[in-house]
Each structure stands twice: as structure tokens, then as C-alpha cells.
């Protein structure tokens, strides 16, 4: 028994250590996994926990998963995908338990908002159910991009000028898919200081899309000639707002001024149940090295503070449409998706079960 316990502990610690190491290495080096890679990384380790760890019942499993999730989130609190995936898996566990427990569809809403169930009954086949559902979830992550790009030809018309900011894998695929049936012109804003707009322009150009590269300062100037704006985002907040890369707010604001429709293409695992209370709240923004903005070699100023924020909050009234892999939605509907994806008890992973 003691040996088995030790094995458990060491297994979990190994896995955790590995995953923490990978995530924190990324944070320190500034290299970022794409959200998809991060999501799959986390999912794989959670699967391993479900498969290999010993747990007696759903309550136990939930507790283990929550603890694991808490530690992962602490590595980089601004990386919301980690928390989202953990919460999805927790919801999967809860739903499967209820399904098995109640013997019928778990979608039946109980009349008290917080179910009285304590998830304590042990079921033998729960493990298989959970693993199956996690597999489905993994497939969803894999096919998210395809599902989004399939909606392209309905949303873009022939001969339109489309503006996008910086580089986003999702938007790139979306535009390439649109190109197959429509002729479009794309204006790419270069997105200082990372200048990933350059790469985006290059990729789009190689796909034979007529592309124009402009500076960040030209966003408002050029918005009058743009038919649609398509953005990617880092996460979607619970009120339907965006946590997008810095610069997106200017684009969204200008689009609103000119009444240009703004579409945000994003897979649904980027949806997080957190609210933004203030843009400098802990865990919302992170400041990158000022070296990117002003090289230390160019001069040293004692009196100057050089700021390089990574994220921007775009409030929901500036975003008319989300293109999720589960379909198109308006920001006011995001709360509904939230309740389908996550369980309210899991919103705050720091609290206790």
C-alpha cells in the first residue's frame, strides 16, 4: 500500500514537474506555445492523471484535478488556456458522473442552482466515460481551426477589403479559406514591436492573396476603406470582452467609429469564466521587456519609463460577432456558452471544492 502511494505521488510529481518546467521555460524565454499546443499539453497530463492515478470516486478525482490545475495556473496566471482546459475536464467529470448517477441525460437542470450532489458515489465505468469524453474534447481542439474556416465563405463577400492586426494562425487560415471562393484584399497592420504582421503578410502573399502592409499608426486613417475587420485574440472574457494583444483596442475602436463589422475568430477553448474588473488587475496584463521598444544600446534615460504591455482589453460593446468553432455568436450570448462549458463551482479554481 505504501509503495502504491509512493508511486502515485512520484508519478504525479514527475508529470507536474515536467509540465511546469515546459510552461515556465516558455514564459521565461518569451517564446510562446500556441494556445492549441498549450491546451493539448495540459490535456495530455490531465488524461494521464485520470488514467494512471488512483482515485476512488468522482469527488476524489475532482479534488486531484483541481490541485493540479491550481499549480499549473500559478506558473503563468495570464495564460488562461491552462485554466480553461482544466475547467473543461472538471465539467466533463461532473457531467459524466451525473449521467451515470442519474441514469439519464445530465442536461436536466436541477431546480436549485447549485446541485446538492456531492459526487461521492463510486462507479466502475466512470473512468471509461471520462476518458472517452476527454478524447472527444481533444478532437474538438484538433478540429477547431477547420470548423472556424468552414464558416468563411458565408461571412466574406467578393471583392472585400479586410483588415487584420498582427499575426494569428486562426485568421490566416480563415482568410486562406475565404480566398478559395472569394477574391479579397487584405490589409495587415504590422503590429509593433513584435512585427508579426510582417510574417502574416508574407504568408498571405505566398498564398496569392493581395496584401498591403501598413504601420500601426495608419489604423484610423485606413479604416474608412475597409469592409471588414477580422481579429484573433488571446482569450475571451466572461462578459464577452476580449483579452487581445496590445493594439486590438485601437482597431476595434476605429472599426466602431466607421461602423465596420468586426469579427473575432477564435476556438471556444479560449473562453474563460473570468471577468475583468480593471485592466491592471493582477493576472490580466504582463509587461514585456522594454528592450523591444527602445534598445538599451540607443541611449540610457534615468527619467524615462518604457512600457511594453502585452494585452489589451476590448469591451464587449466593440465586438459585434464571434466566430467560434461551435458557430457564430454575439458577445451577449457568451454567458450561455460559459454555462455549457464550465461548472460554476469551478470558476474559481483557487477556492475549495
Amino acid at each position: 500500500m505504501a509503495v502504491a502511494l509512493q508511486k502515485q505521488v512520484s508519478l504525479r510529481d514527475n508529470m507536474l514537474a515536467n509540465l511546469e518546467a515546459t510552461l515556465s521555460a516558455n514564459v521565461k524565454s518569451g517564446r510562446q506555445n500556441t494556445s492549441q499546443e498549450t491546451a493539448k499539453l495540459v490535456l495530455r497530463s490531465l488524461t494521464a492523471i485520470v488514467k494512471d492515478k488512483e482515485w476512488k470516486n468522482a469527488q476524489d478525482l475532482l479534488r486531484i484535478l483541481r490541485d493540479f490545475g491550481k499549480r499549473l495556473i500559478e506558473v503563468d496566471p495570464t495564460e488562461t488556456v491552462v485554466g480553461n482546459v482544466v475547467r473543461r475536464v472538471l465539467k466533463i467529470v461532473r457531467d459524466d458522473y451525473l449521467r451515470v448517477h442519474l441514469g439519464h441525460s445530465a442536461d436536466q437542470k436541477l431546480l436549485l442552482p447549485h446541485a446538492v450532489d456531492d459526487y461521492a458515489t463510486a462507479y466502475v465505468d466512470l473512468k471509461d466515460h471520462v476518458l472517452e469524453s476527454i478524447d472527444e474534447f481533444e478532437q474538438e481542439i484538433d478540429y477547431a481551426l477547420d470548423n472556424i474556416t468552414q464558416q468563411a465563405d458565408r461571412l466574406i463577400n467578393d471583392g472585400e477589403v479586410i483588415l487584420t492586426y498582427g499575426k494569428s494562425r486562426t485568421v490566416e487560415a480563415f482568410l486562406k479559406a475565404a480566398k478559395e471562393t472569394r477574391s479579397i484584399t487584405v490589409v495587415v497592420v504590422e503590429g509593433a514591436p513584435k512585427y508579426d504582421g510582417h510574417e502574416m503578410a508574407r504568408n498571405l502573399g505566398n498564398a496569392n492573396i493581395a496584401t498591403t502592409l501598413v504601420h500601426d499608426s495608419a489604423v484610423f486613417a485606413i479604416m474608412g476603406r475597409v469592409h471588414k475587420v477580422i481579429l484573433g485574440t488571446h482569450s475571451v472574457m466572461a462578459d464577452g470582452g476580449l483579452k487581445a494583444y496590445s493594439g486590438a483596442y485601437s482597431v476595434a475602436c476605429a472599426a466602431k467609429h466607421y461602423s465596420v463589422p468586426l469579427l473575432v475568430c477564435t476556438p471556444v477553448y479560449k473562453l474563460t469564466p473570468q471577468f475583468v474588473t480593471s485592466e491592471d488587475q493582477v493576472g490580466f496584463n504582463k509587461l514585456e521587456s522594454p528592450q523591444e521598444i527602445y534598445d538599451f544600446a540607443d541611449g540610457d534615460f534615468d527619467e524615462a519609463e518604457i512600457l511594453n504591455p502585452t494585452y489589451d482589453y476590448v469591451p464587449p460593446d466593440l465586438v459585434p460577432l464571434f466566430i467560434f468553432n461551435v458557430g457564430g455568436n454575439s458577445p451577449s450570448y457568451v454567458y450561455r456558452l460559459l454555462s455549457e462549458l464550465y461548472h460554476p463551482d469551478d470558476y474559481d479554481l483557487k477556492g475549495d471544492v
Partner: protein
Amino acid sequence: MSKEKADKSAPVVNGMKPEDAEKARLKAERKAAFEAKRAAEQAADKDGAGKENKKELTKAERRAIQEAQRAKKAQEKKGPADSKDVKAEEKPAAKSGSTSDSPSKPEESPLGKKKDMPTKKVSFADMKFAANPFVNMHKRRDNIGNLFRSVDRRKKDDGGGEKRPSVHPAILQLGFQIADGAVSGANDRCVYMLEALKKLAQDFGSTESPELHDARELSQEFFSKMDFNVAFLKECRPLSVSMTNALRHIKLSMSEDESMKNASQLASTIIDNIDGFLQNEITLARRAIVEIAKSKIHDGDVVLTYARSSVVLDILTTCHDEGKRFSVVVVDSRPALKGRETLKTLCQKGIHCKYVFIHSVSYIMKEVTKVLLSADTLLANGYVASRVGSSQISMIAHKMNVPVLVCCETYKFSDKVLADCFAGNELGSQREFLQNLSEKRKQLLCTTLSSTVSLVDLTYDITPPDFVTMVVTERGTLPCTSVPVVLRVRQNII
């Protein structure tokens, strides 16, 4: 057709009386005859194109005829007139800007579906139709060599023998400086131009004969010389509103003179006029603006400014010298990154500064209490034309309820109106686009981009008056919409 006699015993069909039934039958027959005739006509029109799908073919045929007409017109008339026809025929759903595919449509077959791709790939900046807003913009040269060549060409064209006018060396030098970007900014360009014109006037005064002529004739002669020189400056870079207004002032000031003068007297009059303009409209105006604006800055203010503006620097340094305690946020943007000079100047003075790029303005704006910008010109409809990016900053400031102050001397006010920032704008050269990038990135942009990608570097943009709280001029503070009033006042004085 003989009518059937109404028979009492005739059955009532469909609830109708026999007479009514008769009328209905006749009507149906007439309708059938009409339909048959129409079908026959249509069949005749088709020229044997097949009867499978009547509607589609007819539509496609009509379209083919339209395309052929369009192509023909494109051959005959070149330029913007074309786009109007194209626009009119465009579907109402698509914006008029979506004519990008038109040049290649005639190549489609008449039965072509909507989804056929145009065979020629064009990028935004190269499109010839009005959809492309960059077509009529001045494009700055990639190297000064072009300018040299054009000057040489002029000399060659003039040929030998007769004395032909050539560009004055001072203007020549200034032209190259402006084209290269060594002299930039509305004020600086105007001042340097006036200084060069003073030299021109001096030379005019000393080389011409000392007889007395009618002042007007003499000034005409001088002005034609001046126009010739200014045309060269235009070639280097389109004149800013400040420059054109200054030139107009000089011409107007000489138009009233009816006395008899000789060349050197005329020259000295002109030089005095120019000096007066420089003193009143530029130097003293600057001082007045600084006086007024500094009263708007209080202790504890956080002032945001964009790129480099001499007016704003003057205001901030004066305030600091008088002991006011405030901090500054300097916003900068590529490609010129002029804000770094501002940062240097302010830091040397000991003012506490923050420095951000324009994409993170929304992050910093909540700390800001005032935005201080300068302008290239103020248009008669209240729009502020300034460096590209100012409108973005003003928009975000407006959204976050931060007052925006624009400082501009009244001589820069223009009586033109613009609806968008594309008319009269200038495109930077590729060299300018690549400024301030690391070598690696320059490589990426120069070598790996395919031909469908174009680089666009706008110079100016216009800010709507809703975003601007106040304009500070030497005559006081005004709302944006008062530009025509000021223009009228100026005209009366002059």
C-alpha cells in the same frame, strides 16, 4: 371567336356564372398567346444557346454584353471616369470600392460563374481604379539619384545658347534637403523656403538693371521666377499648406503696390514682407501659443504627446522652466520614431517621461489628463490634418474622456475641405518604410515577400473635430469648427 349563347342549363363552373367563365377563358387565351410570343422572342434572341435554363443564360448573356461594353470603355477612357460606370453597375450589396476585379472580368467566359478568380493578381497599392486610394498620392523617391537625374534632364532640355531660367542654388539645395527628409515639419519647411526666397529676391535685386519700372510689372517678373523655383520644390515634395499660404501672402502683399521701383527696391520690399511674415506669423505666434497653452497645464498633469513637435516641446520645456510639476507620456510610432528625439529632449530637462508605442495607447490613456498635439493644417470643415497616427490617439482620448489640445498657428489654416485622408496624402518610399528595423526584418521584407504584397507608408491623416476639444492659436483658444471664422478675419486684416 363566337360567343357561346348563355344557356340557363349551362353548369356553374368554379362558382362563376357562364358569362364570367367565358371572359375568364378569353383572358386565359390572350395570356397564353402573349406568353408564347414572348417565348418565341426569347428563343430568337438566344442564337441557339440552348433552352435548358432560360433565366441564367439570358442573365449571363446580358452580363457578357455589359463586360464587353465595359472593356471597350476602359480602352477609350482611362482613369477615374471609368470607375464611375463600374460603380454604377456594381451590385448594391458590395461597396463601390470593390471594383478590384473589374479589369480582369472581360476575360471571363459569358457562362462563367461568379466564383471564377480574376486571372491577374493585383495588390491594393497598385490597383488603377478609384477603389485604390493610393493611386493619386505623391510617392516619395527611394533615392535622391532620381532627383539629380530630373534636374540634369531639365538642364539638357533647356539646350545651349539662349539664357534659360534655372533653379536658384539655394532652392536647389533646399529641395534636396526636403526630398531627403533632412528638413521636415510644416514650420521648418516654410521657414527655410522663405529664407531661400529671400536669397532669390536679393539676387534678383542685384542682377537686374537699376531702371525704374512699374512695380507691378517687376513683381510679375519676380513672381514668375519664384514660381519656377517653387515648381522645383513641388517636384521634390508637395508643398505643405504652410508653404502655400506663405507664398500667397507674399504675392498678395505686392499686388497693391502701384509705385515705380527699380529691382533692388522691389527686392528689399519683398524681403521686408517676408521678414514681417516670419516675425509675426511664425515667431511671435509661436510665443503667443506657448503663453496660452502653458496656462492649461497644471501641477500633477500627465500630458501625452505624439512623435516630435517643436511647438509642444516649447510648451513643455517652458512649463518645466517655470517650475510646474508634471509628467509626460511620449507616444511614438514607426517608421520615423521621431518620438525618441522628444524623449531625449525632455529627459535632459529632467521631466519624468513614459515612452510607449502607439499600439499601447489605450493602456496608458487612463493615466493621462491631457493630450497635446500639433497640426500640419486645420481644414475649413474643422478637420485637423497632422502626422498619421494622431487621429488614432485623439479617438482613444475622446473615448476615455481625456481633453485633446491641438496647437496650430493661424497661418496654417486652410480653406480647403477634405472628407478623408487620401486626397493630397503622400506615400513614403520603401526605404522610409524599412527605417528603424533590425537587419533581419529588413531582409525579410525585401526578399521574402511575394509580388502580391505591397508596403504602404502614409504620411498624414485627418482627425474629425469631435475628437478635438480645443485648438490653441496665437489669437486664443478656439473650438475646431471656428476655422472659417479665423480665415475670414485674416482676410479682412490683409
